[in-house]
């Protein structure tokens, strides 16, 4: 047998799961679509996990803070052009530390900006370590996740 060398703690505590079970903030639907093409030198972008969307966020000036509230600007484009905004979306933004089995101590709020981007408020990464930032994009009955790996020091 091969030895086990990576023994990361998973969530054993009820409180972790219970905290993660809080009701998601219901976002506003995106109505106006006036997004400018994404400037490639700004923010962080990724394909969503099923390849439908190109999702990008702009962190606050100075980067993501440790244990302090912050906000993000999130933009969602179709994956093909990475510049054409997609209509009729709802967004939920959350973050989680998989190795610790818990999420944030706050629930982020998402609002639609006049230019069709999404303003995310109330983010709080309260620990150093590896976080996964989730952007869950809902259109009709389907939700697709885009996720970003964040190493917070």
């Amino acid at each position, binding site marked *: 047998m091969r030895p086990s060398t990576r023994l990361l*703690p998973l969530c*054993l505590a009820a409180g972790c799961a219970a905290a*993660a079970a809080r009701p998601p903030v219901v976002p506003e639907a995106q109505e106006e679509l006036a997004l400018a093409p994404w400037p490639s030198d700004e923010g962080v972008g990724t394909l969503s996990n099923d390849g439908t969307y190109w999702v990008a966020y702009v962190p606050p000036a100075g980067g993501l803070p440790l244990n302090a509230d912050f906000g993000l600007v999130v933009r969602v484009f179709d994956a093909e052009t990475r510049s054409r905004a997609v209509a009729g979306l709802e967004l939920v933004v959350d973050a989680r530390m998989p*190795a610790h089995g818990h999420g944030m101590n706050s629930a982020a709020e998402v609002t639609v900006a006049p230019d069709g981007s999404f303003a995310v408020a109330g983010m709080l990464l309260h620990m150093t370590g590896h976080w996964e930032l989730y952007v869950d994009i809902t259109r009709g009955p*389907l939700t697709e*996740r885009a996720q970003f790996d964040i190493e917070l020091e």
Partner: protein
Amino acid sequence: MILTFALVASAGALLSGAPDPPVREDPLGSHVRTLAQLHGPRAVAIGWDGRVVVAETGAHRVRVFGRDGGELLAFGARGSAPGELLFPSGVAVTGTGVLFVADTGNHRVQVFDAAGGFVREWGGFGAADGRFHTPHGLAVRAGQVAVADERNGRVQVFDHEGRHLRSIGAGRLARPTDVAFDGEGRLFVTDQDLNRVVVFDAAGHFLREWGDWGWYQGLFSTPSGIAVANGSVFVADLENHRVQVFDRAGELEYKWGLHAIRPREGRGMLHYPAHLAVSPSGDLAALAEPFDDRVQLFGPRSATQDEEDQAWRRQGVGQPAPHYGPDMDAAGAYMTIVEPESRSILVYDMQWTEPRLVSRVGGYGSAMGLFLRPTGVFLGVDRTLVACDAGSRRLQVVRLRVDPADEVGQDAAMPAFVKMLDFDRLGRRLGAEVLEWSIEPVAVTRDAEGRFFVLDGRNERIFVFDEKLGYERSFGGHGTAPGRFRAPTGLRFSPAGDRLYVVDAHNRRIQAFAPDGTFQFAFGADAEGRALELPHGVAVGADGSVFVTDAGASRVVKYDADGRFRAAWGGPGIRRLEFQEPRSIAVDGRGQLIVLDHANHRIQWMTQAGEYLGSAGSRLYTKPARLPETYDPADYEE
């Protein structure tokens, strides 16, 4: 296994440090006696004279016992004719001894006189007022009978003649499983998926609710039974293995029950109490525990009970291990198993002599990436996991970011949730079809083109979605005719992808379909012509052999690709190749057959000829399989 996740509800409560509530002067909780050797009892009632009425669900009958445990009466047999029963899961008794039975599998209520003679029936499958979809708990009071109409998400109230009076809770209740009246006619309902008690006034108006998911006192994990007596509300807290007692405003008064550690352990230790009843005088409680085929009776709690409980804890017999079920799957080097208590899916690496737990997917919650009640799972060879959440009526697709060539180890970041289909949002109009209910996914599989075949427990249909989760078509529907289903539970494709096998549980058969949904044939008999008792899971080997778990007979049955009986093995018990309510079954990448031995809290794996290879799970449950020479039946008697 690398690590056992001791995610134990009752232990969590004990370790929480929260102070116990002050105990009433007349609490219940002291074990009196056990009614044993019942077959899967899932409901119980106590009459004014102290007689105990048991819905012996697995035997399709009702049995009545005196307070001393002596049997007074038994009636019912499997069937759908008047007086016959199919998995009865609710029972109530009036002051004159008239018995109301929720005939769950037949979706009706039947009434019997005190001698067990059939009086009348009403209901039938459907969503209209007066009809039922999987009726469960019953309560009677002052000429009325209330029925927890589980899959219709409501409580219906009738007079004793069966005339519909009102429907309660539609839109508020998710999965009502039991109901109780108080002295003023208020209705107390256990809402199992949302882990709460909901209270309505006598006219059916909402009054209050309490609870949430968890194991701290006052919280629930799948509350399944409820009773009101002497002004107190008693709740059978199934996965916390305890009874919690509240006042009628929802303030906790006291609780009792500790998780049975040793297999079949009783004498007051609890193991999945599915239902309870309290005598009208409040001095006797009965708890139905179907996994252990028993009903335990409890009287007033002795003054030394707390000390006895603590002494028991100090024996240090260890923690219970994860509980497996109801579904699993295997592909390539990996196996995935639903763990109901934690609402998560366990991922095992199967390349070793023992399965190694390498990650966990999900947890309790309503956000993407979490589950309310995970049921079916499908694992593709590309390590894409598809999970049904019957509680939130969603399908979630997860990519397991692991490679069999990787160094083995636990990786909490392995799951990446890809996408989710919300059936409530999808709605009830699909193409030209208008569904009676929104889809409740209970099992899922995929074909070679990546289509999703979703088994719907409410409409009892199979819905087909393309690889982008766009709706394509459906087939099936409720009924006994070829191509229709009653309580379907599982589905898998043949290796060539030319045949879909579907477990049609209450019709006691496996049905084979072409991929386009055309019915081909059905099977389910053994060499002696005996039908399956309660088939649950299906797997298909590389040579096309079909393996079925018969949860009702606790055995595995093997057929060839055309449904001809080939072999059967097993039987109820805890020893090697014995099973207790086996649920799912799968063939892993090495061709091993893996059986999810649900009520024994273990898996067993074997050759496709039924030769034992190994077992894993709770230590005290796997020991009789691993070390049969140490088995002593006395260790497993109540």
